[in-house]
């Protein structure tokens, strides 16, 4: 089953490789991984999307907790949570396609952030599923490049991961 893990780690060189090294060493899946510092500059927040049986997820949770630089771990998918992912898509936009592409972007509540006479770059935020839907909704042959950040997640309401 798919799980989304949120981690607070010390904002130190090496913390990320300890986390990613743990996944590769023990044969766990990483679907996506995002990392950035938090409002507290000593802490980084990592979001990992992984999958596995209940036993594997339990081990992932425990093994992450065991890493010295990991300050806190939460399995977001154990409760209500939100997740968002950012995608940038560069498409070929010539002639009638320009209008069509603009309309699709509006429907998906994205925005065009770069325009040339031949291309658009579209910014889109949402769940992974929504981003997939957008890519399916447009003509595949027009896609020049896609960049996705992987999911970031946060608990709903009072579910807070903080020190």
């Amino acid at each position, binding site marked *: 089953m798919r799980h989304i893990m949120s981690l607070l780690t010390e904002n130190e060189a090496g913390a990320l*490789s300890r986390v990613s*090294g743990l996944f590769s060493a023990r044969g766990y899946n990483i679907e996506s991984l995002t990392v950035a510092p938090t409002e507290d500059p000593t802490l980084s927040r990592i979001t990992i999307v992984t999958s596995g049986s209940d036993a594997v997820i339990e081990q992932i949770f*425990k093994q992450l907790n065991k890493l010295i630089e990991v300050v806190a771990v939460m399995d977001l998918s154990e409760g209500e949570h939100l997740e968002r992912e950012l995608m940038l898509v560069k498409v070929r936009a010539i002639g009638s396609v320009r209008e069509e592409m603009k309309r699709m972007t509006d429907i998906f509540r994205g925005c065009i952030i770069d325009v040339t006479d031949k291309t658009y770059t579209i910014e889109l935020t949402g769940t992974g599923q929504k981003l997939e839907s957008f890519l399916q909704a447009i003509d595949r042959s027009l896609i020049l490049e896609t960049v996705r950040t992987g999911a970031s997640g946060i608990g709903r309401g009072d579910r807070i991961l903080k020190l």
Partner: protein
Amino acid sequence: MELTGAEITIRCLQEEGAEYVFGYPGGAVLHIYDALFTQDQVKHILVRHEQAAVHAADGYARSTDKVGVALVTSGPGVTNAVTGIATAYMDSIPMVIISGQVPTHAIGEDAFQEVDTVGITRPCVKHNFLVKDVKDIAGTIKKAFYLAKSGRPGPVLVDIPKDISSHKTEFSYPSSVNIRSYNPVQQSDLGQVKLAVQLLLAAKRPMIYAGGGVILADASKQLTELVHLLGFPCTNTLMGLGGYPATDKQFVGMLGMHGTYEANMGMQYCDVLLAIGARFDDRVVGNVEHFNQEKRKIIHVDIDPSSISKRVKVDLPIVGDVANVLDDLLAELRGSKEKPDQQAIAPWWAQIKEWRGKNSLVYKHSDEIIKPQFVIEKLYEVTQGEAFITSDVGQHQMWAAQYYKFDKPRRWINSGGLGTMGFGLPAAMGVQLAHPGAHVACVTGEGSIQMCIQELSTCKQFQLPLKIIMLNNRYLGMVRQWQQFFHGNRYAESYMDALPDFVKLAEAYGHIGIRIEKPSDVEPALKEAFERKQQLVFMDFITDQTENVFPMVQGGKGLSEVILAEDL
């Protein structure tokens, strides 16, 4: 007064009470060696290969309750040490490794003797550090010792670039450590302890299975009390030997791949299993699906939550320091109105007695040829069970574990998790230094000993009167055994051709060498060797080439699917 980073490093070791540092000098640690030279509180033991430095520090730590310390240079110094570090990591041995690194300005430039030490060692240390500022050395070393010893112990590496060890700063050693992300559980949940006692008292077919965690927590006294109070059978893992007295009547022997019939059958068919400081690894329970076919309640005591329900699903986890949990279990049991019912478990004991009747460690004696098991039995008798025994890895290791009855903890020193050949001799050096007057024997084979044989030179330099018990069967015995059983007797590369004359080799290193070829000479040779209190004696026992280790649970098989010697 300002000190250099190198001086601070040594001062930190002094503050931590480090008696010995095992190491090998090189470019990146020259400043640190210079600082070592100007003091005599911390004694340096010069090994002949960095792997041995780490194994020696490891043996020192295993035979005491102290942290072992090793010091190696950058690049090849570190890569040579990795085997030792991984060995300690797999067996949770508290150790601090200090490594030199190329100067900070050269890091990343593929400098001479540069490797990414922190990267290379990351998967086989509890934690590691690269020190980038001389002001951080003292705090980092303090943290390293704390991490190594607390919680589930393990090796911690501190990588110090050469320029940092020459920079100067004021020295003050921190009195305490606070790592916000690291708070190992000490006290167990008393509710869980109560539930555990209820389960134990209701058991009809109980079993206590104790591992290396009991040794590491210095909890063998509590374990023995608990086992006696309950009247239950107790088995030890390879790493747990000595955690419960092997000569006690409630001891059913070691379990696992080469465990006794009664221990393995007891594990398989018990209804309540109390696992203490053990981790249900593949060499212990074999095939998990097979193990799970029998229904039983499992109580698992361990300091590391990730050890619990890793391979075998547990019903009642108790996370905490093994010694504290055992204290709590004892208190709860003594305070309980219900008492252990010996009548209720009498049929179970009768069953165990029947299994014991198989006499699964029996072997054919010979007057012609030396049986390896016989050597260990005689070693046990001659040393009256009081020696520290280190071992390498292979058949000799299993025979030592089976036939030397360890009554005390920290007497049996072997590489259980990683299975590192070459461990025995350097580990014995660390043990002998920690226990200067004690009998220390290294049980080894002609394959393993050659993986670190250069340490005979270290033994000479530091006058370590080890007794090397080499069971020489001219084969990589355990490999040969598997080839015999599972590969149609095709002994691919398991025969050792062109062996050296070990007697002459021992003599070349300045020691005494003896070759023993007849069973009747075994005991006299051992006696003579152990009487030589000042000298290392290298005993080359020419043993039966085709002897196998029994009982045996094949890889992937279940504990009750055991092969006994009589089956073949």
